[in-house]
């Protein structure tokens, strides 16, 4: 066992310095990730599209993917350093979703990897993950959007909601479609990369409490997609999807995202430490101090769970329940965490970004809005508990993890 996040070696320190220096020299202060999603501009989008290509050239955009597919060919420890430094520099994250490449790596043919994966990983093109339909949230397998064969092509019709992504539209919308209405559940789907810039694809922003630039409604009307855009077999969509659900449900430890310091816990600690009440720090009052301490404990446990799942993914071990557990804890802790912000900061916790009195630039007001999604995003909390219990074999034979790019990739076909 080794709880170091990165090996305490000179080589790692030099690498960290290299990343830091590059970011300092190459990132424009005005283009950094805004506190509020609504402040993300078109100018920023164009700027970061180019920066991501530069980062990909250095191998830092998708550090642990193989070089031959446009990744960095680096270790998990390198990724931890990169993630931490990008976070510290407030770099905008990749415009493509993190899940699609995982599925292509496992299920795509060599030709598809060259055609799709290389441009995606090198940031030449962008993808959005297209999952939720209006009639079904957590019950993803009840997919109704349809794909019908037409010669070598497929004709697609259907609709989606809550499709996340930045910019007006991506190059590809990636997700399942129902290919066989008579086949049983989990055997009736195909997984498609749908070129988004064509007639019949309509993308509209959704107006959400959390902000209106990030989430979209999608309508597909008689959209034609070539046959080689189907990843895996035409009845294997659920299995292809399971690979990315495994990842979405914590199977890759959040891709190293939580290896970086937890900004929100840190901001609460800073607030409790620096706010003065009757000449004493707020944190020295037992109840406020304890709320802050609980936030620290939860944040720390969350990090350990992510670190474990991340390591299992990176080392190519087969995950059991670790990802599902990490995913669930993230939700539970997130909900408790919002309450602590309210307890410690009072009405200041709800002050928006434009007010100079808002602590930490209004970070927590945005988190409060975001918190509306915590309990159901990527599968509801109650279902996440059932998923975890199944992985422990509570009601039946232990459920095994779906194949991921570091494990079982060969046996996927």
């Amino acid at each position: 066992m080794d709880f170091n996040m990165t090996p305490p070696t000179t080589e790692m320190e030099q690498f960290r310095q290299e990343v830091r220096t590059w970011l300092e020299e190459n990132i424009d202060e005005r283009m950094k990730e805004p506190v509020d999603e609504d402040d993300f501009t078109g100018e920023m989008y164009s700027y970061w599209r180019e920066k991501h290509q530069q980062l990909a050239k250095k191998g830092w955009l998708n550090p642990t993917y193989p070089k031959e597919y446009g990744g960095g060919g680096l270790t998990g420890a390198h990724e931890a350093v990169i993630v931490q430094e990008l976070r510290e520099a407030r770099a905008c994250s990749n415009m493509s979703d993190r899940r699609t490449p995982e599925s292509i790596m496992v299920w795509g043919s060599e030709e598809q990897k060259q055609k799709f994966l290389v441009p995606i990983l090198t940031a030449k093109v962008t993808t959005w993950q297209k999952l939720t339909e209006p009639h079904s949230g957590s019950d993803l397998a009840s997919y109704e959007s349809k794909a019908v064969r037409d010669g070598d092509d497929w004709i697609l019709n259907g609709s989606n909601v809550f499709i996340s992504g930045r910019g007006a539209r991506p190059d590809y919308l990636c997700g399942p479609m129902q290919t066989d209405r008579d086949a049983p559940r989990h055997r009736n789907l195909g997984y498609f990369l749908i070129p988004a810039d064509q007639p019949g694809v309509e993308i509209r922003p959704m107006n959400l409490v959390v902000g209106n630039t990030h989430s979209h409604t999608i309508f597909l009307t008689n959209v034609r997609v070539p046959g080689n855009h189907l990843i895996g077999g035409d009845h294997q969509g659920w299995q292809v999807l399971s690979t990315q659900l495994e990842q979405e449900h914590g199977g890759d430890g959040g891709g190293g995202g939580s290896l970086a310091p937890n900004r929100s816990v840190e901001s609460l600690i800073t607030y409790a430490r620096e706010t003065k009440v009757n000449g004493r720090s707020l944190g020295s009052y037992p109840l406020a101090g304890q709320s802050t301490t609980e936030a620290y404990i939860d944040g720390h446990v969350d990090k350990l769970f992510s670190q474990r799942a991340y390591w299992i993914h990176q080392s190519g071990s087969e995950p059991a329940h670790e990802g599902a557990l990490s995913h669930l804890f993230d939700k539970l802790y997130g909900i408790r965490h919002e309450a602590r912000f309210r307890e410690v900061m009072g009405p200041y916790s709800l002050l928006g970004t434009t007010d100079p009195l808002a602590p930490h630039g209004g970070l927590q007001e945005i988190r409060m809005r975001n918190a509306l999604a915590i309990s159901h995003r990527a599968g509801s909390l109650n279902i996440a508990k059932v998923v975890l219990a199944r992985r422990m074999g509570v009601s039946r034979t232990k459920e095994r993890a779906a194949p991921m790019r570091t494990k079982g990739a060969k046996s996927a076909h």
Partner: protein
Amino acid sequence: MDVLLNEEEEMLRKATREFFESECPPKLVRAMETDDLGYPPDLWRKTAEMGFIGLALPKQYGGEGASLLTLGLLLEAVGRAVAPLPLHSTLVAALTIADAGDRQQCQRILPQVSSGNLIMTWAVTERDPRLNPEDVATTAKAEGDHYVISGSKLFVENFNASDQCLVACRTAPGSVVGEGISLFIVDTKSPGVSHVLLPTLGGEKQSRVVFDRVKVPKANLVGGLNKGWPIVERMLERATALICAQIVGASRKAMEMAIDFSKKRIVFGRPLGSFQANQHLCADMVIWVDGTEMLTFEALWRLSEGLPATKEVSTAKAVCNERCQMVLRNANHIHGGIAQIKEFDLNLWFRRASAWMMRFGTTFEHRKIIAKAVLAA
């Protein structure tokens, strides 16, 4: 970053689990609750023969020289079997002698411990159960080539079975917190030592110990005169992390029993485990057991690496106290009425682990330490 067990650690986990599973069935645990000695000497001897008692003691004194992290795996297995052995108390005292004792003390005591011929314990707590130096009132006064100890100690574990006891005494009035405390090795058979067993929920052996003008040779002073408290602090830190490993081991076993029960118990014509409300209870148990296990091993890893670990040890203990208690509650809840029956095994785990949670500080005490560390400017 590899927070998983390596091959060697996996092997030790397997070996220790199997050893206690085969050698220490619940029947034996139950029998020891009413036994005068409180532990089976035969099992103690076998544990020594396996090299487990000396696992983390220095090689030059007959031990295996393993790390505290490795020792944590052993204690996890002890907790898993709720093995009624005086192992934790013996190791806490022996590791302290290895840490702060002189050569002669190490030579005299540690090889005997490793071979299973010497059982030890430690005594710090008096009336105030919080482990603060200012509450140490038992005195040791120099008289010729001896110290004379007078006072009484509470919640002393396995005192009835111990040969030697580490006793924290006041040797000078402390103007600064932590000053004026000294640590002595006391032979439990010395004239003037008496004890009474405490009736506790756990069914383990704890005593109130009285020292009535007990003469202790000057050679039994551990570390410097009046400089004992930092040694005690290190002792308590190690002991806390190690008791967490026992608590986690017991809690994981209780969880496994509950999951097993969920699959077998048929209610309303279906296995209990097929009900989602039951699955939710199980999911919560997994989170708590895995979480406390990771916190515990992180703390032990830091101690093994010589890194500051006060915050991590307290985090592990605070969360163990709260969450492992919840694991045991959920396990009981899932079993329903049957878990109340004294002959049913689960209550052994519930009672023992509850006792361990009340050793080395409550949640509040440890949260206070974490708050201090986290909120320090």
